[in-house]
C-alpha cells in the first residue's frame, strides 16, 4: 500500500477492489433449486406407506424414486449414484403432491400421480406402466405382463425390470407374482410383499393355498367365464358356483372363456 493511497484513494485502487468483489462463489444450493424448479432436479420428503415410512423423490415431471428402510443419507447417496442428479430434502412436500400420493395409496379414486421414468428403456417403461394397470387388491403373474406388452418370452426380463423398479409401492410391482401362484420375491423381502398385498385387501393365504394345490383359475358355472382368483369378478363368484381350474387349457376344454377384465388366457 502506498503513501498516496492513505491520503486519497486512487481510481486504480477502486478498480482493483471492484474487480476483487467479482470473486464470489454462488451458494451451493442454487443448482439443485434451479433444476428442481426447471424440472430437471429433484427434492424429497417422507411419506407413510402400508409397509412403513418411505422417502419419496419428485421433480416437475413426477415422482422419480421411492425407498424404504434407509436413512436420509443412504437415500441421497443411492439416489445420486443411480440418477446422477442433485437432490435436496424439503421439510414439507407440496400439498398437491401429498394429496395425489395419498389418493394413489388409498386407491379409492383414479390416480393422477405422474412418474418421472426418464433414463429407462422403452421396454422397462412398458413393464412399469403395465404393472400400474393392475388394480389394487389383485395380482398378476410375471408372464401375464410379458404377454400383455407383446413380449411373451421376456418373462425373466420383466422380473428384472420390476426388481429395479425405481418407485416401489407407488408403481405396484408387489402385485406381480410368480406364474405358479406363489407370492415370490420382493425388494424388501417376501414378508413385506405379503404385508402390502394384505393391506390392499388381497387374501394372501388363500392365494398361496391355491398355488400349493396347483389351481390357478376360478370359473363361474353360471357365466362360463374364468378369471385369476384375485380378479374383482372372480371374488364375486359364490362358493356354490365356483369351479377351479389348473390351466387355461383345462378351462377352455370345459367350455369356459377367459375374463375380459383380468385376461387370464394371456398367462398360460
Amino acid at each position, binding site marked *: 500500500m502506498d503513501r498516496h493511497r492513505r491520503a486519497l484513494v486512487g481510481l486504480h485502487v*477502486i478498480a482493483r477492489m471492484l474487480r476483487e*468483489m467479482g470473486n464470489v462463489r*454462488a451458494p451451493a444450493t442454487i443448482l439443485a433449486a434451479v433444476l428442481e424448479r426447471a424440472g430437471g432436479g429433484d427434492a424429497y420428503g417422507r411419506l407413510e406407506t402400508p409397509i412403513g415410512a418411505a422417502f419419496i423423490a419428485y421433480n416437475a415431471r413426477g415422482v422419480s424414486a421411492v425407498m424404504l428402510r*434407509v436413512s436420509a443419507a443412504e437415500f441421497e447417496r443411492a439416489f445420486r*449414484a443411480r440418477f446422477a442428479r442433485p437432490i435436496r430434502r424439503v421439510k414439507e412436500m407440496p400439498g398437491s403432491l401429498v394429496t395425489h400420493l395419498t389418493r394413489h395409496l388409498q386407491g379409492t379414486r383414479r390416480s393422477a400421480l405422474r412418474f418421472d421414468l426418464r433414463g429407462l428403456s422403452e421396454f422397462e417403461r412398458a413393464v412399469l406402466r403395465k404393472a400400474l394397470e393392475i388394480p389394487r387388491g389383485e395380482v398378476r403373474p410375471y408372464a401375464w405382463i410379458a404377454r400383455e406388452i407383446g413380449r411373451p418370452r421376456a418373462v425373466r426380463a420383466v422380473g428384472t425390470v420390476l426388481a429395479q423398479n425405481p418407485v416401489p409401492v407407488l408403481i405396484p410391482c408387489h402385485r406381480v407374482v410368480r406364474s405358479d401362484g406363489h407370492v415370490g420375491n420382493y425388494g424388501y423381502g417376501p414378508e413385506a410383499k405379503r404385508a402390502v398385498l394384505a393391506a390392499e385387501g388381497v387374501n394372501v393365504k388363500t392365494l398361496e393355498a391355491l398355488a400349493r394345490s396347483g389351481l390357478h383359475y376360478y370359473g363361474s358355472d353360471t357365466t362360463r367365464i374364468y378369471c385369476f382368483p384375485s380378479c374383482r369378478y372372480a371374488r364375486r363368484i359364490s362358493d356354490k358356483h365356483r369351479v377351479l381350474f389348473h390351466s387355461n387349457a383345462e378351462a377352455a376344454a370345459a367350455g369356459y372363456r377367459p375374463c375380459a377384465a383380468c385376461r387370464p388366457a394371456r398367462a398360460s
Partner: protein
Amino acid sequence: MSLQSGGVVTMPSRKNGHGEKRPVDDRSLPAALAADLDGAFEWMVLSYQNRLYGFALRLAGQPQDAEDITQDTFVHAYRALMAYPGERVRDLALRPWLYRIALNVFRNRGRGGRLRVISLDHAGHESALGIEEQDAAVLPEQALEEAELKRTLGALVAALPARYRVPVVLRHVQDLGYREIASILRQPIGTVKGNVHRGVRLLQQAVNAQQRPALHVHGRRRR
C-alpha cells in the same frame, strides 16, 4: 422385485437422461443446449452461477435477494431455451443474454418497491458481501484498513444510482467489455462509457469522503 432380502437396497447405477458428464466450454455451450437442453443446462448453471450471483449480489446488495435473482434468472432462461427453436439457441450470445435476464429479474423485483437501506456498518456481513480474507503478506494494520475500505466500497456500490451501478458492476466487477455491456443495457456504447466513468468517480469521491475522518481518529498524518 429385487432379490435382496430387506436391509439396505442399493439402486444400481444406470444411464440417465442427462447425457454424459463432461465439461462444456462457454463457446460450445449454445450448440450443446440446442442438442440436449437437459444435459447441457446443468453445465450452463455451473459455469455461470458464480458470475450471475456476483452480479446479483452487487445489484441487490444482500445475499438472499441475490440468490433468488440468480435462481429466477436460470429458471427464466430454461423456459426460454425450451421455447426457442434450435437455430435460435445455437446462435445465442449466451453471456449477455443471461446478464440481461438477470437484470430484468432484478428490475421487475424492484418495481413498486422501496430502496433498500444499506448500512455502512456491515459487521458480520463481510463474507456475505464477497469481501475475501486478506492476503497474509499484508501487515495486520494495513489489512484492517483494506478490509474497511472494501466494506465501505461495497456499501457505496449498493447505494449508487442504478444507472451508474449497473454499468460499473458489469465493467469493473464482472469485467465485461463496453460493447457487450452496451448490448445488455441496449444503450449506445458512449452512454455506457460515460456512465461507468461517472459512476467510478462518484465512488472515489464517496470513499475519500468516508476515509478522511477515520484517518483523523486514528491519528494518522495526511500527506
